[in-house]
């Protein structure tokens, strides 16, 4: 067993008992990044010197007996979180030379307050707009399970880095599935908490009523530890909720006996790959064996979540991204003769095609004469989607479904077809629209070797099978009631006590 196979709890224990120092632990990961990341492109910035300095500071604290669950533990920050003195580029050419003058709340919570070590900043889709990490100005990220495939997005760099053992855990953000979808297709546990649970201060805005920070990690237990440290009230974010954070780690061992798990009919209808369906149903059977009860529920408006999202999110994005003007910070076009030319050219050069598409969609749906037909209508459907969840939760304690329709697709397969790219998030978007917490965890592997180009023909693998070429991970999603993160972690942890999919590592990265 190598250092990078340890859980966060085991790492903290080893640091406490001086089996290794944080300096040694950090060097171990920096070496792996140097050696293995050229295959993946999961880091846009490696902050080696800062990491070792933070590790030394952590070691000093540990010597004094001052050790918390994250003291001296290395993590990677998605490059959407502002980090003082370190470039924060958000996957965009627009911010290629932006060095943040302050730390995001999440960054100060994890590093300043909890003593975690920052290994660097992870690659991502430009301004978090994408589901494959292919919209990044800094190049696509590869999926460690198959280097010809995407790691998902927009937190694709965070997902690839953790899945390949280049960092024990990573932060992510999720506006429509950007934590859960990459987690599902790289064999990780990813959690998007309730809207308002994690401060958005210093988290570069995409769609402010949907954006929420969260974690990608190797297990529910690890994710619970990191989310615990990130969560809590922050007066600098007007939507931060002033409410006590539950003890996530303390509730992991709660039995799931008698828990009512709702299976939304619409999440298992046409469009879901057979092998993914089989994997999720096998997982549901395991939860039943542990004493849970399955309940049939319906979210009749769930199929409208993608069109609703593609009005609401671009509308908010077009407004949020109006701040990039080439004047105060960010990319500035050369040789503009008028102020207007400076704006249009700086934005035309600084934003990539996907960001420009979404700004244009947002501008269109908010424009005079279309506002009622699109934006107001979408807000009404959003309410219906929210009401569907409210009714479903009268019959059950949490919901279970697939995270994605298929395992990872190949690089380039969907780059020129935005709508088919958007449909990646068909099962994840509704939780953002409603503001509910949701978690994706590994639930099996699909063997696609029979037809690598058509993953829908893949075969669900059994737990004992060895993972040959063409074995790709898939995930299942738990959606909870408002602020019920502890329950999601608990169910995921209980499942992971029996089913060990999450311990599998991709070949070449062991």
């Amino acid at each position, binding site marked *: 067993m190598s250092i990078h196979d340890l859980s966060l709890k085991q790492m903290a224990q080893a640091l406490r008992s001086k089996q290794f120092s944080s300096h040694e632990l950090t060097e171990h990961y920096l070496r792996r990044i140097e050696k293995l990341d050229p295959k993946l492109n999961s880091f846009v910035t490696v902050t080696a010197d800062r990491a070792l300095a933070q590790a030394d500071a952590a070691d000093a604290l540990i010597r004094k007996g001052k050790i918390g669950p994250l003291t001296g533990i290395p993590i990677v920050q998605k490059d959407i979180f502002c980090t003082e003195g370190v470039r924060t580029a958000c996957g965009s050419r627009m911010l290629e030379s*932006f060095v943040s*003058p302050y730390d995001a709340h999440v960054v100060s919570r994890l590093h300043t307050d909890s003593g975690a070590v920052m290994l660097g900043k992870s690659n991502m889709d430009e301004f978090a707009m994408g589901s494959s990490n292919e919209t990044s100005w800094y190049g696509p990220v590869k999926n460690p399970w198959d280097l010809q495939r995407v790691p998902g997005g927009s937190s694709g760099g965070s997902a690839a880095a953790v899945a390949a053992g280049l960092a024990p855990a990573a932060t992510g953000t999720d506006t429509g599935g950007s934590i859960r979808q990459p987690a599902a297709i790289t064999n990780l546990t990813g959690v998007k908490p309730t*809207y*308002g649970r994690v401060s958005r201060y210093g988290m570069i805005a995409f769609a402010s*009523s949907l954006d929420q920070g969260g974690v990608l990690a190797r297990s529910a237990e690890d994710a619970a530890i990191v989310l615990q440290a990130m969560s809590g009230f922050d*007066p600098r974010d007007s*939507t931060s*909720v002033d409410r006590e954070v539950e003890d996530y780690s303390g509730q992991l061992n709660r039995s799931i006996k008698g828990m009512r798990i709702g299976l939304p009919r619409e999440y298992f209808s046409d469009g879901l790959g057979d092998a993914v369906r089989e994997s999720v149903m096998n997982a549901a059977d395991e939860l039943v064996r542990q004493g849970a009860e399955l309940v049939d529920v319906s979210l009749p408006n769930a199929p*409208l979540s993608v*069109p*609703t999202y*593609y*009005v609401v999110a671009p509308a908010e994005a077009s407004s949020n991204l109006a701040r990039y*003007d*080439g004047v*105060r*910070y*960010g*990319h*500035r076009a050369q040789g*503009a*003769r008028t*102020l*207007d*030319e400076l*704006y*249009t050219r700086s*934005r*035309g050069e600084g934003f990539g*095609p996907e960001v*420009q*598409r979404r*700004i*244009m*969609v*947002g*501008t*269109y*749906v908010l*424009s005079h004469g279309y506002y009622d*037909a*699109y934006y*107001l*209508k*979408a*807000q*009404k*459907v*959003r*309410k*219906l989607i*929210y*009401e569907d969840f409210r009714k479903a939760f009268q019959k059950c304690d949490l919901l279970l479904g697939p995270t994605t329709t298929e395992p990872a697709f190949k690089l380039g397969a969907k780059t020129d077809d*935005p*709508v088919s790219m*958007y449909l990646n998030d068909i099962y994840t978007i509704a939780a953002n*629209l*409603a*503001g*509910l917490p949701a978690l994706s965890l590994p639930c099996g592997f699909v063997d696609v070797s029979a037809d690598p180009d058509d993953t829908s023909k893949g075969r669900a693998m059994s737990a004992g099978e060895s993972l040959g070429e063409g074995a790709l991970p898939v995930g299942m999603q738990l959606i909870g009631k408002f602020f019920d993160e502890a329950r999601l972690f608990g169910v995921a942890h209980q499942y992971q006590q029996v089913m060990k999919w999450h311990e599998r590592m991709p070949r070449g990265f062991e």
Partner: protein
Amino acid sequence: MPAAGHGRELFVEKLRWKLEMSLDIDQVRQVARLARLEVRDEDIGHYASQLNQIMDMVDQLSAAETGDALPMAHPLSMVQRLRPDRVTEENQREKFQANSPVVEQGLFQVPKVIE
């Protein structure tokens, strides 16, 4: 100015959009203008086609029975928090302006606005 051949192609393409698409080329140009995005002529057609695909997908909403549903702007039914009206942040002008492409004497520089 586009070459004559290119201009004709653009005209034909424009006509085609007007007939088939919910968003024609002129509208896409107008939207790009409103959003302060410089889009090259050769890219307009491609954007138009993709925006139409997206809007076709979005049009599913028109069939939804929303009845008297109240528009939902936000997941949390919360009241805007207020804070005391006190100065809490120190002036960090130089630090913040360090990210600006062109600053002179503490001022952001832009092309001349008034002749």
